[in-house]
Structures are given as structure tokens and as C-alpha cells.
């Protein structure tokens, strides 16, 4: 038996039922003695089988040879791996919506098997094979007739409030989840929601009245332990929350970026040629993981993902990420994960001691980073010098496929239309010189019928 492994995962400490840790590059979860009764019931009641068979709960195997804290350990389980950890503030509207419905479906199934979810954190959901999946095996406890759902408040804060705000107020309010680690406070959601939102009973009840009740009973002493709620009423509550979530919608309207491909200055031939260049480069380096920065709706990400490569398709535009995700759902794609990311302010580490939720960089590096039709936006629109860009990309990928767009390109000209051209350094020579400090330039190919050049570069940091 191997014991005393002190490599606990920084996000796993709130629930005394157990914790996750890493050993030899694999993730394990210790089930503490205190959780024995609930774990045994989860496994023997048929709930685990029902949820894992339907793809709602991460499957695991028991591995009692590895023990982290022997005095406290009942069992050690090894969950199947999730290729990339993402967070709710990186999800599009439908990703958060599907995560919410998965949580509610699990709670409904759990109640039918005599268990209940003791938390409803959005961080318990990850995307695997294109679908949301619940990853916290220790979130279940034996249901006692009469008990309310302890995670009701958390569900409203983590899911209903942000979805309501994204749907009724502004899609960008999902970024409040970055600030409020335990979900958006309901009094704040109430202030930000427009009056018309409360014509919907579910938002009136679960947000407005909920927030008022929190305020009203905030400093009152009521012995709630004497009272109970029937199982049927609880199922009614879950059913209503499901209807509430299903009824919230957001249409990705034609933003500048969501319609980018339609407005692109590429000819059909140039576009096809660019795809061929990308295919050749990927063949040459044979990567396992791909991060596509500025992926838009994921046209070029799919060159990688359709070859079986796990591809994270990042973009800063909510509409583009939403349309990318909906395409994944429609085509049942399993190797691509669209995520929201502002490259000029990449996801930072947040939570307790700034370690609870990982920064983007902590989740890398990827085998290859793609930055296609992106450099001119960062350099001209965001005043990022080539040196900074080269340094940045070198921290995220072992290989880099990057497109250089000269100033005489119509898109670059358009970016300079409303501002003074202070970018005398924006030349291909300077681009090569600065990137050469961090990368070895392996190959460069000019795109036919265009002035653009695609580079394949190898990070000099690789040994």
C-alpha cells in the first residue's frame, strides 16, 4: 500500500466527505470514513450505475492500494479522466444551461433512488466528449423524507441567476461568476434583472421572492428544524427549476465576430489553401492537444478535432462561442470544447488563496497553439508589441501555428481606419525577429490569393 501522498488538489477542501489528490499524474479521490454510509448506499442502491450508464456521472474504479490519509480513509476511488478542466465563467449560455439541466436531472434521479445532492456547484460539472458530466462522486447523501434540498440556494446562485441575467439583461454578466466564486448573490441578481423578467413565475419565485426571503429572515430566529417538506413537493420544485432553466434562452445575434467567416476577405480558394497548410503542419508535428486562440466559430479548430485531436476552441465573443458549442451539440462532436476567453485578460487563478480555480496557464501548455488571423487584432487593436505576443505564446504551447497579416491586408487597414497608425514596427521582418527569440521558425507558407503567411514554429523552451 502506498500512503501519505501530499499532493492534494487545491479546489478540493470544503467537503469533509473526501478530497481529490494527484499521484503519478493520475487523479484519485479519497472517500473519508465519515462518508462511508452514503458512499455504500450510492453504490448499492443502483444510483451510481444509473447515473454513470446514462453519462451523467463520471465513472470510477476503486483502488485501495493508494491511500492518502490512512486514519481517515474508507476507500480510494479513481475517476475516469477529464481532458480539460473548464469553469462556468468560460462557458457560453447553452453550456451553462446544459450544465444546469444535468445537475437537476441528477437530483431528480437521486431522489428516485433515495438520495439527494448535498451541493449544486457549477464547478462539479465538466465537459467531456462534448457533454456536461458531474464529477463529484461524493456529492450524494441519503435522502431523509421531509428534508429540504440544502443545495437549493447554491443552485439558484450558480445557475439560475446567471442564466436569467444572461438571458434578460446582458450576456456578458456571466463574468460575475469570476468575482462571486459561490455564485451570483440573489439580491444582486434581483437588482440587475429587468421588471419584465418577473412576469415569469419561476424567476419571480426563485430569484425575487428568494432574495426577499433571505433579507427578511437574515436576522430572525426561526427553528426550521421542526419543519419538513414532502418528497413530492421537492420533485415539484425540481420540475419547476427544470422548466425555468429550459425556458431561458439567448440567441447569438450577428455580432461582428459571430459573422466573421461570412465577412472574411478570403477568397474560397485562399480559405481552402489555408486549411491545407494547417493540415500539413498538424501532420508534421502530430500533436495530442490543440488550443486554438481566437477560434471564432471553430472552423480551423475542426481541422484538428476532426483528426481526433483534443481541441480547445477559445474566443472572446459570446455569440461565436455559443454558435461553436451549438454546432458541437448538433454534430455530436466529442473532441472539441469551445470556451470563452479574452486573450488580453486570460482567465486568472481565483478562489481561496488564489488557488482554488486554476488560471489558463496552469492548465497548459498545449502541444500546439494556433493563432490564426489574430496577431493584427492583438498588435493593432490592443497595442501589443510583437515581443509581448511571442513571449505570451511561448508560455502556452510547445508548438505554434501563427498567421501573419501584413498592414496592406484589407482587414489590417480596416483596424487602422479610425486611429492613428503608430505601428511602424508592424512589419514581417520585426515579427520574425521577435518571435525568433522564443521560437525556432520551422516553416512558413504564403496563402494563395492573399498577402498572409502562416508560420510553423517550435518553442525554444522544449528540450
Amino acid at each position, binding site marked *: 500500500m502506498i500512503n501519505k501522498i501530499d499532493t492534494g488538489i487545491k479546489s478540493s477542501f*470544503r*467537503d*469533509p*466527505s473526501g478530497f481529490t489528490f494527484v499521484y503519478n499524474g493520475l487523479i484519485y479521490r479519497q472517500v473519508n470514513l*465519515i462518508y462511508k454510509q*452514503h458512499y455504500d448506499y450510492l453504490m448499492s442502491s443502483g444510483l451510481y450505475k444509473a447515473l454513470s450508464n446514462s453519462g451523467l456521472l463520471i465513472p470510477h474504479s476503486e483502488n485501495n492500494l493508494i491511500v492518502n490519509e490512512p486514519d481517515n480513509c474508507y476507500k480510494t476511488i479513481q475517476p475516469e479522466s477529464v481532458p480539460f478542466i473548464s469553469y462556468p465563467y468560460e462557458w457560453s449560455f447553452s453550456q451553462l444551461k446544459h450544465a444546469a439541466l444535468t445537475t437537476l436531472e441528477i437530483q431528480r434521479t437521486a431522489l428516485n433512488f433515495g438520495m439527494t445532492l*448535498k*451541493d449544486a456547484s457549477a464547478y462539479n460539472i465538466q465537459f467531456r466528449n462534448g457533454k456536461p458530466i458531474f464529477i463529484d462522486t461524493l456529492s450524494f*447523501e441519503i435522502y*431523509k*423524507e*421531509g*428534508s*429540504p*434540498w*440544502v*443545495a*437549493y*440556494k*447554491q443552485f*439558484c446562485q450558480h445557475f439560475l441567476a446567471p442564466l436569467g441575467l444572461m438571458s434578460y439583461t446582458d450576456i456578458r454578466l456571466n463574468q460575475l461568476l469570476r468575482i462571486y466564486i459561490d455564485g451570483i448573490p440573489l439580491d444582486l441578481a434581483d437588482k440587475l434583472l429587468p421588471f419584465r423578467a418577473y412576469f415569469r413565475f419561476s424567476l419571480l*419565485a*426563485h430569484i425575487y*421572492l*428568494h432574495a426577499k*426571503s*433571505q*433579507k*427578511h*429572515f*437574515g436576522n*430572525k430566529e*426561526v427553528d*426550521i*428544524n*421542526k*419543519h*419538513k*417538506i*414532502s418528497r*413530492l*413537493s*421537492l*420533485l*415539484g*420544485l425540481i*420540475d*419547476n427549476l427544470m422548466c425555468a432553466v429550459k425556458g431561458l434562452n439567448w440567441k447569438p445575434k450577428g455580432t461582428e465576430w459571430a459573422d466573421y467567416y461570412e465577412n472574411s476577405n478570403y477568397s474560397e480558394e485562399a480559405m481552402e489553401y489555408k486549411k491545407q497548410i494547417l493540415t500539413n503542419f498538424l501532420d508534421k508535428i502530430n500533436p495530442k492537444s490543440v488550443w486554438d486562440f481566437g477560434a471564432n466559430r471553430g472552423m480551423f479548430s475542426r481541422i484538428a478535432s476532426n483528426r481526433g485531436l483534443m481541441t480547445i476552441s477559445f474566443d472572446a465573443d459570446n455569440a461565436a462561442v455559443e454558435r461553436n458549442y451549438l454546432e458541437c451539440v448538433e454534430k455530436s462532436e466529442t473532441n472539441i470544447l469551445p470556451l470563452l476567453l479574452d486573450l488580453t485578460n486570460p482567465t486568472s487563478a481565483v478562489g481561496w488563496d488564489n488557488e482554488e480555480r486554476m488560471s489558463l496557464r496552469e492548465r497548459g501548455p498545449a502541444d500546439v497553439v494556433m493563432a490564426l488571423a489574430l496577431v493584427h487584432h492583438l498588435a493593432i487593436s490592443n497595442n501589443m508589441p510583437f515581443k509581448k505576443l511571442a513571449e505570451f505564446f511561448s508560455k502556452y504551447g510547445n508548438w505554434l501555428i501563427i498567421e501573419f497579416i501584413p498592414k496592406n491586408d484589407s482587414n489590417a487597414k480596416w483596424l487602422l481606419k479610425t486611429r492613428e497608425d503608430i505601428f511602424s514596427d508592424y512589419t514581417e521582418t520585426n515579427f520574425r525577429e521577435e518571435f525568433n527569440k522564443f521560437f525556432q521558425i520551422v516553416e512558413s507558407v504564403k496563402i494563395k490569393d492573399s498577402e498572409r503567411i502562416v508560420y510553423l514554429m517550435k518553442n525554444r523552451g522544449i528540450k
Partner: protein
Amino acid sequence: MENFISFLLLNGKHGIDNIYAYIDPGLGSVIIQVVIAAVLGFSYVIKANFKRIISFFRSSFRK
């Protein structure tokens, strides 16, 4: 208000003290949950048994 809530909250042995809860469910959240669930429980029964209720009335009228 408290009287109305007491009407909806049925007395019993099992409250949140029986739950091994590591998160704070929040007093105001539990109270509003019980109130909303009491209302929704009734409509849920009708919704879940809608076909059965309809067929019951149909068979009653046929007689």
C-alpha cells in the same frame, strides 16, 4: 407572514438537522423553498398524473 409559513411547514421529525450538510442552506432560502415547494407540489401531482386524471374523467362520463 410567520403564521402563513407555519401553515405550510408541516411539523415533523426530519428537518435540516438530519442532513449532513457542509454548505449553509440559508434560513431564508429554506423557508422560501418550503413555501414554493408546497405550492408546486400540488401542481406537480396534477402534471405527473395528468393522463390518469383525464382518463378517469373520461371513463366517469362514459358511465
